[in-house]
């Protein structure tokens, strides 16, 4: 299939998909993943100014996997923890920001799981890429003096959250076309192209539904380019983190390496990051990310 045909065909499908998605968003009919009820409840507590970790602990206990994650993080070397903590003490140690990140990370990871084997493999790769981008974005934000490290982490983690949802929608459409109408659907290069064109709008819809902070939503919407009007904007850390993750091999589908290299070159100047620092970040990323998967 030649590139012109892919572009022409994907433009048609993307246009159709975009219309469908926007219509569904406008009518509040887009089936978006919801956050588990325990996470919703905890997030509600965190929005209150006088929340107590005891109340959150009582809620979290209903979700043993999440409670175990909190305990594991609180007793990890990263936060200098000891092994004897109850859940409320563990929550106090990781703090409200750390808990919020952990909850959203848990919620997001479920979006990247699919019963369909084809999507499951792709979603797993996107999730690995997202975790790498998150870790890099937080480091870059710290290096540029930003205090929004957690927001950068979330922005990186969720910047591609629309992709598995679009993939599921495409699969649904494919099944209808092939099985019901017995017609041929688009080929895989068109799939990837379509996903690239529409996933950000879906991601933004998820962010709004999950009531994510605006700076995180901005990362999902705008991290394709740098914001030169505000060099310290979190979106710039995520844009750079995204490019570095791709350079480190965390990619899904074909990647335009010239494009990625251009993003890194621009990012060095926008963020004022030196080559020494970049080499260190890139060198560390595989070791760090490999330890983050459950």
């Amino acid at each position, binding site marked *: 299939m030649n590139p012109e045909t892919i572009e022409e065909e994907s433009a048609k499908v993307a246009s159709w998909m975009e219309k469908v998605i926007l219509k569904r968003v406008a009518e509040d009919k887009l089936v978006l993943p919801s956050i588990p009820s325990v996470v919703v409840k905890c997030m509600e507590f965190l929005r209150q100014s006088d929340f107590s970790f005891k109340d959150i602990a009582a809620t979290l206990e209903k979700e043993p996997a999440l409670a175990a994650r909190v305990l594991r993080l609180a007793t990890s070397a990263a936060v200098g923890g000891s092994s004897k903590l109850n859940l409320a003490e563990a929550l106090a140690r990781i703090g409200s920001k750390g808990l919020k990140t952990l909850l959203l990370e848990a919620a997001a990871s479920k979006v990247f799981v699919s019963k369909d084997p084809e999507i499951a493999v792709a979603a797993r790769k996107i999730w690995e890429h997202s975790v790498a981008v998150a870790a890099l974005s937080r480091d870059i934000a710290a290096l540029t003096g930003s205090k929004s490290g957690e927001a950068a982490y979330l922005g990186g983690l969720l910047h591609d959250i629309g992709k598995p949802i679009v993939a599921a929608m495409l699969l649904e459409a494919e099944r209808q076309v092939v099985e019901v109408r017995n017609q041929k659907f688009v080929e895989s290069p068109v799939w990837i192209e379509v996903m690239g064109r529409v996933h950000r709008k879906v991601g933004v819809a998820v962010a709004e539904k999950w009531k994510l902070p605006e700076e995180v939503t901005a990362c999902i919407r705008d991290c394709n380019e740098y914001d*030169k009007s505000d060099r310290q904007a979190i979106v710039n850390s995520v844009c750079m983190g995204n490019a570095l993750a791709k350079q480190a091999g965390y990619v899904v589908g074909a990647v*335009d390496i*010239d*494009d990625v290299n*251009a993003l890194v*070159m*621009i990012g060095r*100047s*926008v963020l*004022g990051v030196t080559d020494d620092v970049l080499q260190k970040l890139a060198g560390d990323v595989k070791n760090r990310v490999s330890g983050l998967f459950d």
Partner: protein
Amino acid sequence: MLRVLTVDDSRAVRSIVRKQIIEMGFEPVEAEDGEQGLVKLGESQIDLVLLDVTMPVLDGPGMLARMRESGNKTPVIMLTSESKRSVVAGAMKLGIDDYILKPFKPEELKSKMLAVIGAADAAADEEGVLDSGGPAPRKNGGEDGPGTSRQFVDVLVVDDMENVGRKLRTLLPQHMTMASFTSAQAGLAGCREKTCRVIMLDSELPDVTSSVLARQMRLLQPHAAILAMPLRSTNDITKEMKDQGFDDVLFKPFNQDSIDDFLLKYFDNQEILICEDNLFKVGGFHGKEDRIPIYFSRLEGLFGEALKKAASACYDEVIIDLSQAPARQEKLPRMLLEFAESSKQNGIELKLVGSQDVKKILSAFTETKSIPLFATVQEARSGASA
């Protein structure tokens, strides 16, 4: 002198960049658009192009494309307010070496210019001869003879009087390497081709301001110490030279004393005093007897620095091992007396380790006989009596 061409339609930007280029010791060349830029490239040898993107007549990418089509490989840094990745990716395909987003910090411009020029020099060294469309090939090697690329030299000297280099060579130890040049241009070429430990510049080179040359050389050799070589004078011009950016001075005409001091300072000052936490081991003296005062004077200076470190590390006692020290009447007690006073001021107890000869010398003075002296370091640490 390296020439840097700035192609930008903004007079304000050109003016800011020109200032930076001159401060770096390079020669600025300017053009308002891509067409003018191509003309300037054809008129003279240009070592680096700073290129804007959006310009009237011919834009940056257009100029870059025509440069590369004609075989011109001059390094290019894109200096622009354009941050779209598609534009930069296109320019990268045409061969830009780096990118700077406006507004920029002077340090970013300086560091990227140096990195690109340095990389171009290294590539030129490897290729030997550049293509005809690129910058003119640079002379390889110093006046001492043909050099190898990135050869290490201990001392690089620039003085228009040939005898200065010859004289210095006779005073330096044989094992030390030296490259000598009689002009600023040749010296700069040497700096590009070699890695130097110390650079020595005549303070009055013809047609060149030595402090400007020093700045250029510091950019090329950031780790080298740069010394001025003025004539001896009744005025103390050391401060003046340091204010101009030199690290130190070495007065002409040289003598063995000044060269020995220079060697101690820049090449061999670690063996006089070896510090292991709060244990200071004094190294032996090997040389002519008339050099003893310089040895002690140097030792005093090193003691001062070592004491500060020990105080910073919260040691409440310091042991000085004098086993290897030259046992000289007066010199040793005087030095120790000063050191004991400084130690006391810092709340640090002083203990000595030394031979019977040392004990005898120190006992002759009221002020030093009270300093505890031990036969070995172990005894000093345990506080056993001498």
